């Protein structure tokens, strides 16, 4: 079933932040995003059609400026599309308010960034706990323990980001992203700032997350070796998906 057909089937449904096991977790149709720089319109996405099933590990690759990061931001609810449809876990982002998208993001989406984006004043432990605090469901010690053990950061929990290596920071960032059990993990060039060894460690951990917890992962990268870890590779160019 293509994305348009899926959207036609589920598009009339009311957003409910509910799990949609039978539906894809991501479905976009003719998704467009245009940025305005002064009086100039810069099209970043020019009609993206994409379907991702729950539990998939998808890599999106393409050259710089092809719209990968913009797609990630739209799928994460950080910015609204200019036109087109985007359903994430059955919720239509194109018709949701900023507050609704924020609430959805809080409960359903985890982000991993190229620059780690840990709060520099907090320890690794508190960076991870902050995500739980913002979600508002309280501290879950079992989940916390299993995540930090899996990512191998037990010994680093009381360190602040400046005292951690790049690989350790990225593992803390992954822990923060998955601590609240998001439906979707969005990774923006997660190995972009890491050396080969740490890149491999981070990619292996993402692979393990996907396999162990059936975590849906959408990772953008310009590195074909990193993309090879994924189940599926989507190529983008000039704001469009050119191969899937």
């Amino acid at each position, binding site marked *: 079933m293509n994305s348009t057909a899926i959207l036609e089937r589920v598009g009339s449904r009311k957003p409910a932040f509910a799990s949609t096991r039978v539906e894809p977790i991501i479905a976009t149709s003719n998704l467009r995003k245009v940025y305005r720089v002064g009086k100039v319109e810069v099209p970043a996405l020019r009609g993206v059609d994409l379907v991702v099933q729950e539990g998939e590990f998808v890599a999106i690759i393409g050259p710089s400026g092809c719209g990968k990061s913009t797609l990630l*931001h739209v799928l*994460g609810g*950080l*910015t609204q599309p200019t036109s087109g449809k985007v359903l994430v876990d059955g919720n239509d982002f194109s018709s949701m308010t900023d*507050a609704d998208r*924020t*609430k959805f*993001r*809080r*409960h359903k*989406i985890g*982000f991993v*960034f190229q620059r780690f*984006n*840990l*709060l*520099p*004043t*907090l320890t690794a432990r*508190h960076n991870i*706990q*902050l*995500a739980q*605090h*913002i*979600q508002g469901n309280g501290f879950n010690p079992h989940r916390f323990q299993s995540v930090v053990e899996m990512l191998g950061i037990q010994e680093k929990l009381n360190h602040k980001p400046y005292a951690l290596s790049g690989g350790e920071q990225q593992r803390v960032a992954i822990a*923060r992203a998955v601590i609240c059990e998001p439906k979707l993990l969005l990774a923006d060039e997660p190995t972009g700032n890491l050396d080969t060894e740490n890149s491999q460690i981070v990619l292996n951990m993402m692979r393990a997350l996907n396999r162990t917890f059936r975590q849906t992962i959408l990772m953008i990268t310009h590195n074909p070796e990193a993309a090879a870890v994924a189940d599926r590779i989507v190529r983008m160019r000039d704001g469009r998906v050119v191969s899937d």
Partner: protein
Amino acid sequence: MVNRMIMENLLHRPIRTAVSVLAVAIEVGMVMLVVGLTQGLVHDTARRVEGVGAEILVQPPSASFLFGLSQAPMPIKIGDRLAELPRVAGVAPTLFVFNSVKTLAVIYGIDLQSFNRVSGGFVYHEGGPFGGPYDILVDDIYAKANHVRLGQNLNLVNHEFRVAGIVEHGKGSRLFIPLSTAEDLQGVQDKASIFWVKCTDPGYIEDVTDAIHRLLPKYQVTSIKEYMTMMTSNNLPGLEYFNTAMIGIAVVLGFLVIFLSMYTTITERTREIGILKSLGASKGYIIAAILREAWLLTIVGVLAGYGGAEIARKAILAAFPTLTIELTVEWRLYAAALALAGSLLGAFYPALRAAQLDPVDALAYE
């Protein structure tokens, strides 16, 4: 968790935290000291007037309740007529002499005998009553503040006075000279600026006041109770405006520093705000976190302001013992409320701006 984040942010930028706390402390300390000083001066003057022991004050029609401004003497023979009224135990005339040489002071020119009758008499720490026309009595606080010793000469109103006695404070003025000398200095004869009237019993104050009104219909007759209620900084010309202006400056200072502090914080932490937004932090969460940070700074600043005001009070009183500074609980609370309100206002715009940041732009901020 938010409190930990706030604490870590404050500790991470110690200079800005210290400057913000200092600004709030100055704001709070300034409000407390300015109000404390004006209220202290007014209340101290009122208490000393009450300490004379009279129950009724009689002044000329155009006189002010501020004695230093009362330069309209009355014939002293009025005192004899007042003394003849029923239920009057004593009447003491006083002629005010305003000194502006080296120090500002209202000197009481008194008839010692009648003044003692009304006030119950001076308590002498050293020396004794006037022995000559240019003898002066000073109170113990004035003597201590100005290092005045018994027998030394004081230059007041461009005249040399010999200190004949050092008396317990609290009987109107801090300086007393003979009434006849005061008349000479003012160039008047048999005149008084005020009559202190003591009743045979405090229960007769109203009756005696009515009787004086009938006797001297145009004169100002004020019971000491009424006088005490008039002696507030709100009733003193210009003082209320001065207080309001000083408090306003202090509040604006606190507001601006908190505003700038939080504004620069938001600019510096743009990326961190983007991170919070990517984690799903709502606008309310971000606004609350920033306001809480401002409030924490303010609370520490308020406490530092309380301490600073106490230290400043002790330092001022050590240098100027004749001053009185009243740091009241009421004004501690007002100062804290003003500081908290100012910081809330100062932090609100930066907080709102932070909440409205675009998460994508914020995450890309270098």
